[in-house]
C-alpha cells in the first residue's frame, strides 16, 4: 500500500442515482474544485472503507458513453483512464440503474475494457421488484467478472457491503482478470488493430495494468474509443495528432468500403448485452409504470402546459417577490453592522472605508444569497424528481429555434429576476457550449435592478396619460421595455449560435428518467454548494469592485467639502456631497466620457450615474440623487423627479427630454452595467475572456441602439 490516499472514481449514466449515492457515502465531507481549464466542477469526498482505508471518492460527470463527444464525456474518460492530467483511479465504483440495465451495461462494457479494478453498485434494485422483475445477480457478476452489489441509494439501505467490496478491490484481493469479451467482426478487429499502434504508450501503463494481457486489452480499448470518438473538429484536447489522423483515415477508408465503423462497434457491444441480458432478467407482465401515468398528465398537450406554467410561475414568483423580504433582512443587517461600526469607530477616512467600502462590499455579495438559495432549491427539486428533463423536452422546440438547449429555459426565466443566480443556474446544462451561450444572453433580460431606473425615468419624463382610451402610457412603456429586452436576448442567442458557437448542435436525444421522490439531503447539498462556491469565487471580485468604486467616487478628497461638512445644514451637506462626487475620479471620468455619450443625449452627470451604476444598476438612482445635490433619494422621490425634469444644459435646453429618457432606458436595457454579473460569468467560465467579451458586446450594442434611438428620434423631430 502506498502512502497516498487511494482514489476511487464514482461513475455511471446520468439519472442512475449516482450523485445521491455520492452524497450518502461522503455526507458533508465534500470538496468542490474545478477541472483544469473547463467549467465543470470536480467534486470529491473522503470516507472510510473496510480495512481502515480512508479513500477519496471522486464524483465523475455522468455519461452514457466514454466515446467523448463533449467536454463532460471527455472528462469522464480522463478520470476513469487516468489520462490528460487526471490521476489514475485505484478503483472505479460504477453505478448502474437496475431498471435500465440494457443501456447502462453499454457504459459498463467500456469501463471494463479499461482494465481498472471495478466494483458495480446496482442501484434501484427495489424498483426492479416493484416492476415485477427479478435479476440473477450471480449470473451478472459472472458475465462481467467483477463484484456486483445491490444497493438502494435513496432508501436507508446498508452501504456496508458495498464499502467492503471497495476495500477488497483496493487491497488487490478482487483483482479481476476475466473481463467480458465483446466479439468484434474481422473487419472491426482489423480496423482496431490499425489504430492501436498509435495509442500513446503513457495511456497504457498504470499500477494495476502491469500484466501484459491488460496492457494489450487497454490498447485495443483506446483504439476502439478513438474510432468512435474522434472527429475533424471536436471539443477534445490532449489527443495526440497522429492518433486522431489515423482514426479519421481508417474510418474514412472503411467507410469507402461500406463499413460504418462507429455504428458497427456500438452494435457489437449491444449484441453482447442483448445476448446475455434476457437470461439474467425475468419480467412478469405488469401494469403501466407509475411514471408513464404521471407523464400522461405532465406531458399532456393542455394539462401538461398548465402545470408547467404554474410551476414556472411559482419559481419566478419566488425569485422575484418571495426573495424580496429576505433581501430586505440582509440589507437591514448589513446596514445595522455599518451603523454600529460608525458609532464605535472615530469619524474619518478609515471609518468611511470600512463602512462604505468593506461592509457595503460584503453586503453586495451576500445580498444575492436569498435568490441563489431559492433558485437552487427549485432546480434541485426538479432535477431530483426528474421533472427537469420534461422541462427540457417541453421547451426544446421553442428554445432550439434560437439555438438554445431546452434546459436554458429555467436560467432565462430566472434572468428576469436577476442575472447572477441565472448564470449560476446554467450549470444544469450538460454541454459547455449551451452553458456559455445561455450565460452570454441572460444578462440582456430585464432584471429587477433595472426597474428602479425605468420607474424613475418613466415617472419623471412621461405624462400619466392614457392612450386608446384605457392604456396608460407609463405602463405601456414598462411593458415595451420587457418585450424589447426579451426580443434582443432571443435574437442575440440566435446570432451567437450561428456565429461564435456554429456547428455544435445541441444534444438530439433526451432521456426522460422515471419520476422519483426527491432526496432532500441532495437538494440541500446542491443549494449549499452553489451558494458557497458563489461566495468563495465571485465574492472576492464583487467585494474588490465595490471597494474600487467607492474609492473612485470618494477620492481625491475635497478640502472645502471636509470643512463644510462640519456645518450641520442638510442642504449644504447634500451640496457638498455633490461637489465631492463631481470632483472625484469617477466624476472626472464622467466628464471625460462626455464626448462619447453626448451623441446618445447624455451629459456628464448622467455619465457619473453610469459609473455608479456599475456597482448595480439601481445605484444609478441614488447616484443621480447625490449628483443633483439632493442627498439620499429613491426612484419614487418627487424632488428627484422634479429636479430631473428641470435640469438644463448651459444654453437653457432641458437635459432630459422624453427622447433622452428612452435612449437612457435602452442603454440600461442593453449595457452590462453590473459587475456582479461579470464576476459570476468569470466564476463559471474560470477565465476573464468571456466576461470581457460579454461587457464589450453588450456595451457596444447599448451604445449603437441608444445612438439610433436618440439621433433617429431627433431626425423625426422629437
Amino acid at each position: 500500500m502506498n502512502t497516498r490516499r487511494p482514489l476511487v472514481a464514482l461513475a455511471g449514466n446520468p439519472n442512475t442515482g449516482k450523485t445521491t449515492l455520492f452524497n450518502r457515502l461522503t455526507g458533508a465531507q465534500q470538496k468542490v474544485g474545478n477541472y483544469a481549464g473547463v467549467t465543470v466542477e470536480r467534486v470529491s469526498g473522503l470516507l472510510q472503507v473496510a480495512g481502515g482505508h480512508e479513500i477519496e471518492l471522486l464524483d465523475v460527470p455522468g455519461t452514457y458513453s466514454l466515446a467523448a463527444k463533449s467536454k463532460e464525456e471527455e472528462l469522464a474518460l480522463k478520470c476513469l483512464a487516468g489520462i490528460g492530467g487526471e490521476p489514475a483511479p485505484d478503483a472505479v465504483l460504477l453505478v448502474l440503474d437496475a431498471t435500465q440495465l440494457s443501456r447502462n451495461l453499454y457504459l459498463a462494457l467500456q469501463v471494463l475494457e479499461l482494465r481498472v479494478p471495478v466494483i458495480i453498485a446496482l442501484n434501484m434494485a427495489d424498483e426492479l421488484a416493484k416492476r415485477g422483475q427479478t435479476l440473477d445477480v450471480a449470473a451478472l457478476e459472472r458475465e462481467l467478472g467483477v463484484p456486483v452489489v445491490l444497493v438502494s441509494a435513496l432508501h436507508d439501505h446498508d452501504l456496508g457491503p458495498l464499502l467492503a467490496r471497495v476495500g477488497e478491490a483496493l487491497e488487490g484481493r478482487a483483482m479481476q482478470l476475466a473481463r467480458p469479451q465483446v466479439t468484434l467482426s474481422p473487419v472491426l478487429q482489423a480496423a482496431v488493430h490499425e489504430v492501436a499502434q498509435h495509442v500513446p504508450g503513457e495511456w497504457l501503463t498504470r499500477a494495476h495494468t502491469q500484466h501484459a494481457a491488460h496492457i494489450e486489452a487497454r490498447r485495443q480499448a483506446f483504439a476502439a474509443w478513438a474510432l468512435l470518438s474522434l472527429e475533424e473538429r471536436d471539443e477534445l484536447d490532449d489527443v495526440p495528432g497522429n492518433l486522431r489522423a489515423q482514426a479519421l483515415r481508417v474510418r474514412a477508408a472503411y467507410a469507402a468500403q461500406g463499413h460504418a465503423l462507429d455504428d458497427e462497434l456500438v452494435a457489437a457491444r449491444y449484441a453482447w448485452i442483448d445476448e446475455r441480458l434476457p437470461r439474467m432478467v425475468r419480467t412478469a407482465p405488469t401494469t403501466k409504470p407509475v411514471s408513464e401515468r404521471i407523464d400522461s398528465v405532465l406531458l399532456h398537450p393542455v394539462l401538461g402546459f398548465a402545470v408547467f406554467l404554474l410551476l414556472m410561475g411559482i419559481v419566478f414568483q419566488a425569485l422575484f417577490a418571495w426573495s424580496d423580504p429576505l433581501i430586505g433582512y440582509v440589507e437591514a443587517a448589513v446596514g445595522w453592522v455599518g451603523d454600529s461600526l460608525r458609532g464605535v469607530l472615530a469619524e474619518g477616512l478609515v471609518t468611511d472605508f470600512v463602512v462604505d467600502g468593506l461592509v457595503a462590499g460584503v453586503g453586495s455579495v451576500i445580498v444575492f444569497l436569498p435568490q441563489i438559495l431559492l433558485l437552487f432549491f427549485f432546480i434541485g427539486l426538479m432535477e431530483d424528481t426528474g421533472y427537469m428533463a420534461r422541462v427540457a423536452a417541453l421547451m426544446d422546440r421553442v428554445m432550439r429555434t434560437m439555438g438554445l438547449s431546452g434546459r436554458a429555459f429555467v436560467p432565462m426565466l430566472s434572468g428576469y429576476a436577476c442575472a447572477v443566480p441565472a448564470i449560476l443556474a446554467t450549470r444544469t446544462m450538460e454541454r459547455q457550449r449551451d452553458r456559455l451561450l445561455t450565460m452570454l444572453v441572460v444578462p440582456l433580460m430585464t432584471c429587477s435592478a433595472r426597474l428602479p431606473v425605468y420607474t424613475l425615468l418613466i415617472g419623471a419624463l412621461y405624462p400619466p396619460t392614457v392612450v386608446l382610451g384605457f392604456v396608460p402610457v407609463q405602463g405601456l412603456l414598462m411593458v415595451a421595455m420587457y418585450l424589447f429586452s426579451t426580443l434582443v436576448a432571443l435574437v442575440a442567442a440566435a446570432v451567437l449560435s450561428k456565429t461564435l458557437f456554429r456547428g455544435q448542435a445541441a444534444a438530439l436525444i433526451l432521456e426522460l428518467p422515471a419520476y422519483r421522490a426527491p432526496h432532500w439531503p441532495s437538494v440541500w447539498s446542491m443549494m449549499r454548494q452553489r451558494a458557497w462556491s458563489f461566495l468563495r469565487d465571485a465574492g472576492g471580485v464583487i467585494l474588490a469592485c465595490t471597494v474600487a468604486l467607492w474609492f473612485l467616487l470618494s477620492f481625491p478628497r475635497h478640502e472645502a467639502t471636509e470643512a463644510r461638512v462640519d456645518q450641520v445644514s442638510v442642504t449644504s451637506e447634500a451640496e457638498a456631497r455633490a461637489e465631492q462626487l463631481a470632483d472625484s475620479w469617477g466624476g472626472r471620468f464622467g466628464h471625460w466620457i462626455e464626448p462619447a455619450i453626448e451623441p446618445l443625449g447624455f451629459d456628464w452627470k448622467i455619465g457619473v450615474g453610469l459609473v455608479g451604476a456599475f456597482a448595480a444598476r439601481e445605484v444609478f438612482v441614488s447616484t443621480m440623487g447625490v449628483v443633483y445635490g439632493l442627498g439620499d433619494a429613491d426612484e419614487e422621490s418627487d424632488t428627484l423627479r422634479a429636479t430631473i425634469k428641470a435640469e438644463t444644459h448651459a444654453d437653457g435646453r432641458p437635459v432630459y427630454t422624453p427622447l433622452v429618457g428612452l435612449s437612457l432606458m435602452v442603454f440600461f436595457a442593453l449595457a452590462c452595467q453590473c459587475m456582479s454579473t461579470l464576476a459570476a460569468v468569470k466564476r463559471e467560465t474560470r477565465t476573464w475572456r468571456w466576461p470581457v467579451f460579454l461587457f464589450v458586446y453588450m456595451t457596444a450594442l447599448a451604445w449603437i441602439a441608444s445612438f439610433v434611438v436618440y439621433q433617429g428620434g431627433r431626425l423625426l423631430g422629437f
Partner: protein
Amino acid sequence: MEMGLLPGTLVRMVRRMPLGGLVELEVRGGHLSLRSSEVGQLMVELG
C-alpha cells in the same frame, strides 16, 4: 446509436410531446425523447 437505438431494437412509441417537435419512445425499458426529424430517419417495421 449509443443510447441503444439500433437496427432490430424493439421500440414503442409512447406519445407525441406537446408543441410538436419531439416524440417519446420506449427503448430498452427506458424513455427517450427524440426530435421528429430524427425519428424520420428511423426505418420502423410495424409488428
